[in-house]
């Protein structure tokens, strides 16, 4: 079906001619053990489905109450972005920007970018504006989207505050928790080689 793919191991530079991979198999570099390529079933459809699910959850996670803190009559309501704004107002601008990028902007750009690329590819069209640059950008920011780490931060904070006051989780936090798994699923169902192939063929 496909011609063998010439690939160099990204960790030790050894060259390979990879034949199309059988179902559920992984090609590893025989010298350094790095994963060269992984077979992904229905990669395009699955990634697209996870991306759409992710976008919906992302909107819910940002629009609805995130965490409430209750102590007697006092109630403090927050959304996902409250912490960023508070940090910014306290003069911690660099930290505020870092948190905003890693927990809100980059995940959003990643999801939106994937939708922008995959939706046209699904109906055999080419995204009209610089698809290669968009895909390159998404892959570059990938290590900086850290929602799952944020979740650990939420759990630690909830335990930490448990003795001081009552922490009430809102709807947003549940969709945030599901979103982490959806993002992981989207990332693992995505086959970059396939997307690059499609972008190239259509050009």
């Amino acid at each position: 079906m496909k011609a063998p793919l010439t690939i160099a191991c990204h960790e030790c530079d050894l060259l390979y001619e990879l034949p199309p991979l059988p179902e559920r198999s992984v090609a590893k570099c025989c010298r350094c053990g790095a994963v060269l390529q992984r077979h992904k079933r229905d990669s395009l459809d699955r990634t697209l489905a996870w991306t759409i699910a992710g976008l919906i959850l992302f909107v819910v996670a940002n629009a609805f109450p995130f965490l409430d803190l209750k102590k007697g009559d006092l109630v403090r309501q927050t959304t996902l972005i409250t912490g960023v704004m508070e940090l910014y107002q306290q003069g911690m601008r660099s930290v505020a920007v870092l948190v905003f990028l890693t927990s809100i902007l980059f995940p959003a750009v990643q999801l939106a970018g994937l939708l922008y690329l995959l939706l046209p590819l699904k109906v055999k069209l080419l995204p009209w504006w610089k698809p290669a640059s968009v895909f390159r950008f998404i892959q570059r920011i990938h290590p900086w989207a850290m929602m799952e780490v944020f979740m650990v931060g939420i759990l630690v904070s909830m335990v930490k505050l448990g003795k001081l006051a009552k922490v009430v989780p809102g709807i947003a936090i549940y969709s945030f928790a599901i979103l982490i798994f959806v993002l992981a699923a989207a990332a693992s169902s995505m086959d970059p080689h396939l997307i690059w192939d499609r972008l190239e063929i259509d050009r």
Partner: protein
Amino acid sequence: MKEEFATALEKSLVSCHSCHLVSKATAIHGKGEMICPRCGSVLHQRKPRSLSRTWALVIAAFIFYIPANVLPITKVTSLGHAQSDTIISGVIYFIQTGMWPIALIIFTASIFVPLAKLLILSFLLISVDRKWQWRPRDRTRLYRITEAIGRWSMTDVYVVTILVALVRLGALANVEAEPGAIFFAAVVVTTMFAAMSFDPRLIWDAMETDHE
């Protein structure tokens, strides 16, 4: 392995960092750069100035690591009484109150991981610089781990963010972020950039030159 195996470098080929297309290392662009014909990235056979760049970032991170641990990261004001916390005092608090799993998470993510990462990267840099032949496969694995665990150090930055957002109960309790948080965030960012700028293929280049 066998004789027929060769690296892209030996065959004058170059693999693209972003789309992994292998192309001939001759397609010189106007400015003397090679451009990937498929995705348009600038091509390099090895990450440019990988060693000096990574060293610079590792040293910067070592420097940031000190104020990140010495300076307080949060200040809790409760009924007129203010208390500043460093990362370590936070860990000690959790141990004293019996919440040792949380203490372990914070200690691992905020203290152990950044330091381990910096030590591993320094070791890898020295090993490449001296062209060591010792266990290249394990050193590559070490690099892979370093790259994967770095992001988890952000945990404490997020904890500070959430505390600052939530604990706004007027005179009863208030949490503010302190300068230590800036340095700590700087440690996380510089170590991540350091891991990205290191090129694990340099570990294997030392092996090639000796076999010939």
